């Protein structure tokens, strides 16, 4: 265990430092890749392969979970059966799409006529849900924050879409909405991103220094 922790720590730190150095010294003066840049690309290629394989692992895990659910006859096992059948069919069509034209047509049709409308319809239902939630918001929790939230959403709606026959709503479309979207909303979102970036930086440094070992070890 101790050797495993040390080994993983050494690997993580060394590869992290090399990739970080590749960002800085990855290119020569003439624009060609340096040795560190080439090494960085190798590591990135491995990461891309692992990430692609992770998708397959996720799909396999999903298959196992629903298979277990069916075998244990849990609630909603019927939906699991549908999911597994659909998954297997789509997977096979995707594999055969390169070699069998009808399989390719079926594979594209399954996406175009099943997945795409379903997801779009779910997004369309969001309009009704959000509208209804806005109506009930003040009835559920009548406080300042709720009022502010509801008023802000309403102002953005007014400023985004032109009213029929009137067009852009004066003051809302050209003043209020841009100010809200570009200043408080962007500032808040940017602040969140900066916090995330700082956290990521700290995490990266902790990993590089060996203080944090999420891959295993004492602090992992």
């Amino acid at each position, binding site marked *: 265990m101790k050797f495993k922790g040390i080994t993983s720590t050494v690997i993580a730190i060394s590869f992290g430092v090399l990739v970080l150095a590749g960002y800085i010294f*990855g290119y020569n003066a003439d624009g060609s*890749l340096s040795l560190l*840049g080439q090494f*960085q*690309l190798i590591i*990135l*290629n491995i*990461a*891309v*392969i692992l*990430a*692609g394989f992770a*998708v397959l692992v996720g799909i396999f895990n999903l298959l196992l979970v629903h298979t277990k659910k069916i075998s244990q006859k849990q609630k909603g096992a019927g939906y699991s059966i549908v999911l597994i059948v659909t998954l297997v069919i789509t997977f096979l069509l995707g594999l055969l799409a*390169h070699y069998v034209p009808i399989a390719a047509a079926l594979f*594209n049709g399954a*996406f*175009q006529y099943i*997945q*795409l409308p379903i*997801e*779009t319809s*779910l*997004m369309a239902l969001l*309009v*009704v849900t959000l*509208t*209804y939630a*806005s*109506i*009930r*918001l*003040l*009835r*559920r929790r*009548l406080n300042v924050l709720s009022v502010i939230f*509801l008023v802000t*959403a*309403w102002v953005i*709606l*007014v400023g*985004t*879409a*032109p*009213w*029929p*026959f*009137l*067009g*852009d709503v004066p003051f809302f479309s050209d003043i209020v909405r841009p100010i809200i*979207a*570009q200043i408080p*909303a*962007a500032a808040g*979102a*940017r602040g969140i*991103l900066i916090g995330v970036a700082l956290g990521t930086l700290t995490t990266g440094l902790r990993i590089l220094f060996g203080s944090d070992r999420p891959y295993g070890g004492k602090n992992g």
Partner: protein
Amino acid sequence: MADVLCPVCGKPNPPDQVECQFCGSPIKPTDGTTAHNSQTLKPGDQPTKGDTAEFEKAKSPDENPIRPGDLPTKKNTADLERALPSWLRTLREGKRPASGESLAEPSSDEGLPPAPPATPASDASSALPDWLSGLGEAGSEDEEVPDWLAGLRDDKSIQSLPAAGEEGNPSPDLGNEDWMARLGNEPQEPTTESPNSSEGPAAEQPAFDVSPEPDTDGNLSDWLQSLQSPDSGVKEPPAVPQSEGNLPDWLSSLSGVPEESKPASNEIDQPAPAENNPDWLDELKMNSVTPEPGTPAEGSESVPDWLSNYGPVPTTPAATPGENVPDWLSGLDNKSRPDSEAPAALFGSESPDTGDLPAETPDWMSRLQADANIAEEPEKKKEDFEAASEEPASPKSAEPLPEWLSGIGTTTPPSSATPALILDNTNNPPGEEGETNLPSVTPDWLSKLSPEQANEKAAVSKEDQVDSENLEAAELPSWVQAMRPVESVVDQKSAALEDQVTEQNGPLAGLRGVLPGQPGLGALRKPPVYFSKLLVSDGQQRYAEVLERLVAGESNPRTVAPTKLISNRIWRWVTTLLLFLAIGLPFVSSTQVAPTLLAASDKGVSSKIIGGLPANVPVLVAFDYDPALSGEMEAVSAPIMDQLLSKGTPLALISTSPTGPALAEHFLQTTSLVDVHQYQSGQQYVNLGYLAGGSSGMLYLTGSLTAAMPVDVNGKPAWNSGPLQGIQGLSNFAAVIILTDNADTGRNWIEQVGPHLGNTPMLMVISTQAEPMIRPYFDSGQLKGLVSGLPDAKIYEQSYNRPGLAYHYWNSFSFGMLAAELIIVAGVIFGILADRLFLRKKNREEA
């Protein structure tokens, strides 16, 4: 070489000194002594074969061996002379030591030869008491020293010391006769004792048991050290370890004599006729007292048979297993102590019976006593050693014992028993217990000695020494006597022992003082008392109260007043119906009721960039949006892609989302304004497929485009032929257009790929929801063009006068948004009023 102590004054003299340079007394033996050297039995020499049949003659067949409690029978010791072996009688007759020869003091370690003449024989004979003078006469008449014994004496006498230890340590067997002989100025009657002691088995040589102790302890007196020195006359070691049968080497060599030359044990055990008893033995017999019953008789095996004939001699008290004291000495002791307790040590021990003894002391005896006191060592083993050798001279009877003998009488608690442990011995009076547990090789007198006794002996011996120097002990103040260290030690030890606890159970059962008698390692004391009340200031008390209230408030669940709402289902259906009508009805109508916006968000920069792109240079288009938002994204992207496709620009499609490649195919094949261009995969565009890894994949794509996406979705090579031929990197594309609804995805493209594009512009078509996050990149110049949402798409179409999805969606979008705004406002107002009405009605009902 060690100095030789003067036997008279006890002062050291050079080894080659014949006479004492201090007192002028002769140190070395006279010629008469050296005359026996020729017959000295040395290691390896074979003893002369003697006729042991004479012992059989002298043995009375009807006599019984001495038993414990038997009184010795008075016999004429002259008869015993006939029982002596011929060689011994010959020695007596022809080789009797000269009168001036001092029979060396037989050491307690048996093998040691006698010490040099402590006192001149003439002096000794003249001052002998009556009871000893008889011995002297008998010895002078009958007794002779064997050659081997004389030789040993001669060899050792030069080196040995005349200290009290020598004088007071007559070996019970062989040494006793020498000791007594020296007292009587002539060899003591060794008739049956000498052969017995020298030729008997090891078990019958009890005096040897004490000999190894001085060797091991190194606390030897000078005379013992001189005996052990390699320069001594006799080279054999003075003693034999107990493991070897308690025999010294010289005696072991004797035991190696052929059986025929040895007197048989039965021969040795043959008691001499009663008429052969010496006078002193007769006197002892007369004074013997029957020992107390119950005394152990285990040591009866060490009683010589010849002495067993004396019957009444109480040998049993001192007879313990392995005891080295001869029985005849034990008998003496027992006779003097009718309570059958252990004989006290002669030297170095108190003698409560001193007053009973005659006060007259010969001069030579006084000197001997002084020498004994000088040579006495404080060490315990030395004391033991001396005590063992002094046992025979401690009778308490009214016999005319010399004063020095009586003065050295033991004060040891009389006991014949041997304690099992030294600790017990210090706590319990000796002789009460543990006798039978004593090893057979441990003499009784040794086991009975305790450190207290040794200290007492040392103290008494010192007092005796002072007495010998005419110093009156009574002159000491009482407080000085009270401060004697001996008594204090005894008191302290006894007090400490009283506190000790004898274990009753477990493996330590029977042991005393091994565990503390009280709990804990130190003295118990009352634990300190601490205040239980916390000392805090007022401020701290306030803070504590605040914290307590906060904690209590968190732990108590809040009771939320139940809010009874009007049926949600009606509101949901009403909301849904209004939205459907607001969105559906305008979509059916082809009339634009909503006015068109005047300017796009990027102010037409994207249109200009796309319009300036070369027609034959491929453009990389990333489809990174979800199918759920494909309605918006396709409507927004259609006018831009229409512009590109209208120019015949080849496309390279890529996606960091698994559904992106399918969405790209769907977009090119089905989307309005795009589908009219009939772009074919592999000819006008190449669908590179899915790029895994997120931001890492993007970075890898910038470093090695062809390696990251080597083939298209159909498995065909993407870069060797077709529209992407000649493309080696992202900078070779005419432009990079990102179609995304996710701000994070757009940010990754900007941050990972943007810096490596060089002069290649990056445009981004995004959903309205991602505009707040992406627009700063456009404002900063990292993005060259930005198309955000349906309004910008409507402006884009309007600028090129190619109505598309944006155009068709615009009325529905305008009416739907307006309906939503109104529903929200109306719903909020109605809801508040309804709740108020409901509460008022409820209050009325309650009132």
